[in-house]
């Protein structure tokens, strides 16, 4: 497949596209490089979306495999990362919807007997007044619950916006929405996060820890 002029220009701008074109042409080292380059970002995004490290890795792996399987059909049109996150978005939404249809059985189920029910997901409701000595871990749990309180699309939009630093146009591309729709989506999501978390904003004077190398 010949690389057209437009895509050649884009490829010059975006090193990831250059890399992907090498993957398409079965350059054996290119895919390994691609995995190496994107694994932190993909696993992190998936982790924020689904909450479980195992599932996040499974999903990220599936994204890479889909990239590989569809490599021959790859034509550089948009930013490469937008393309990858479009695949990630589809997989994550499917996983989240599946989970909603049939709640996943947590591994800890054995703690209460293999067939027993999981102990109620304990802890305070998000309306409870924040305790002043919440450890970072507990704070993370509160934030996680707030994120889980968003619907799937809101969560995807927030995660891409926050952790991939994507602008509205790119989020719209990834999610197959208009930029205006993304604006509404994010506004609702941010409003919900504000409701759920504003009690926790000033509780910790220390600045948030720097995110791990990603």
């Amino acid at each position, binding site marked *: 497949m010949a690389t057209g002029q437009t895509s050649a220009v884009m490829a010059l701008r975006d090193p990831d596209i250059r890399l992907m074109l090498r993957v398409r042409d079965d350059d054996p080292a290119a895919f390994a*490089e691609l995995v190496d380059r994107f694994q932190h970002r993909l696993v992190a995004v998936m982790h924020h979306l689904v909450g479980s490290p195992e599932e996040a890795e499974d999903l990220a792996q599936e994204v890479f495999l889909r990239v590989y399987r569809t490599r021959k059909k790859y034509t550089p049109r948009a930013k490469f990362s937008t393309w990858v996150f479009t695949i990630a978005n589809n997989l994550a939404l499917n996983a989240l919807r599946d989970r909603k249809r049939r709640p996943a059985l947590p591994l800890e189920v054995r703690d209460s007997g*293999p067939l027993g029910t999981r102990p109620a997901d304990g802890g305070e409701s998000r309306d409870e007044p924040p305790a002043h000595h919440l450890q970072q871990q507990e704070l993370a749990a509160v934030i996680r619950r707030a994120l889980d309180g968003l619907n799937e699309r809101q969560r995807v939009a927030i995660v891409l916006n926050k952790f991939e630093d994507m602008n509205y146009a790119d989020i719209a591309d990834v999610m197959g929405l208009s930029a205006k729709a993304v604006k509404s989506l994010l506004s609702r999501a941010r*409003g919900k996060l504000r409701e759920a978390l504003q009690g926790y904003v000033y509780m910790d004077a220390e600045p948030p820890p720097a995110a791990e190398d990603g």
Partner: protein
Amino acid sequence: MPDPDSADDTAVPPDPFEAELVAYLDGELGEDDARRVEARLAADPSARARAAALKGTFDLLDYLPQPPPSPTFASRTLDRLPTASGGAGRPAVAGSASATAPLPPAADPAPVRWGRWAAGILLASAASAAAAYLAAAAARPYLFPAPDDLPISDHRAVALLPLYAPADDLDYVRELARPEFFGDDPAVDFDPSLRPPHGAEPDAPTGPGFDTLAAEFKALPPARRDAVRDLDRQLHALDPAARDHLLRVLEVYALWLDRLSDPERRAVLAATTPRGRLDEVRKVRGQQWFDGLPEAQRRRLNDLPADRRDQAVVELRQAEARRRDDWAFVRRHAPDIVANRVPWPFDDDKLRAEVEEFARAAFRTDDPKKTRLTPADFERHAAALNQAREKKGWAWHAYGRVVHEFTSPAAPPPRRYELLPEPVGEPVTRPDQLGELGKRVFEKGAGMKAVQDKVGRWPDFALAVHGYAAKAERLGPLGPARPVEFREPLRAFVTGELVPALSPADAKALAGLEGRWPEYPRKVVELARQYDLAAPGLMPPGSPKKWEALYGPRGRPGS
């Protein structure tokens, strides 16, 4: 948590100013719009508070943990590439592949009952969704680095633990593979040469998933761990097709268990013996089958007295199995059927002529008076042959089926015509050939009645006499029972082809039957079939296994 506005959360938000504020904070507003927001913020303290809360809460997301991919993530991903058949095509991993994955603490190290841990592993595997197509994945090498203290020899058993956990041993798995359990499941019974129904690559358990399984494995009681290792070893000592078949059975079984209600699953897993477990499985499967019937049929069955109901259930299930066979056959041969190709052995002119000649000689299909076939079968044979000659192509298959059915030991008795070799001289087909002894035996009306409709036909008459006389008196062999008594080319086949091919034990068994009729010729046919040789005149020309594979009812055990 369900979101009340999830259906239209991209519509215009209830508070347009908040949307503007968020977009402003995200740097997404044009200059004019940004000025407007800034003017309002300058004038309105509550707007400023809202902006601060929006920003502060969004910043809180930085507190979320962001674990890096596990060190083996990249290598495991590359190992799953479709080209990685054995690792040769696997690209080099940049960076971090050599480290070992940290092992999470085992979930429940306390010793547990069989049922408990098996259920735990099942549930864990269901949660990670790794069960799908594990079976095919088993054939692949697992190249990813090990948790520190897991011997490499245990890797495969650990990767397949979700399949092994609910099974006792290889015998148990073989039982599960019977059609009455899971052998008939489409996921077990598909043609492996076709693409898997998912059309996807098999899933191998991935890093953290694998580590969890390793922890589960280590938490097993030592005897159970050994049993899992044994099962894994025995399965992988089988030939690949048999192994994959049984792995598919295990996969279907594991998914089936996973979908049971808790009390049902508990009943299966808590059984103390494999036999008891199979009984539970059978019970639940039977109930599921019954519950799956259309309501009218269920009502009809429920209205029957218990014994009639059992009989009706057996008949229904047999009819179901036949339909499944028919569909399976069409599925397997779809390409040939569509292309209207002539099936083996009729695609070879010489073999085709031999098969036609075999049928003519064996069943006298050329003469309605002398034929061995019932009138209905005579018609069926003639119609199939005519149609095959006329329509050609796949139409030959129907003819092959007829010939196979007449000769197959697996065919139900009324359809089957036993073929036994004729003697060098005249075969026994009439009462007057039986001599004085025979006359005495058959002078009574009952004896004559038992054999008279077979008069004139070999070996039906001799077999009927043998069956009747065996009750009263022995008449001696009524047909050839040694190689020298056979006609050519059967004699040369037995001495030159069959006997040299036999194992010492089989050769001895055959020699031990010499002189006994019909036991000896029956053993010749049985052994020829077993060694995939066609005994001339007694079996259709060509490999018996090929006949069975192409025209038989798929070798259903027990049919």
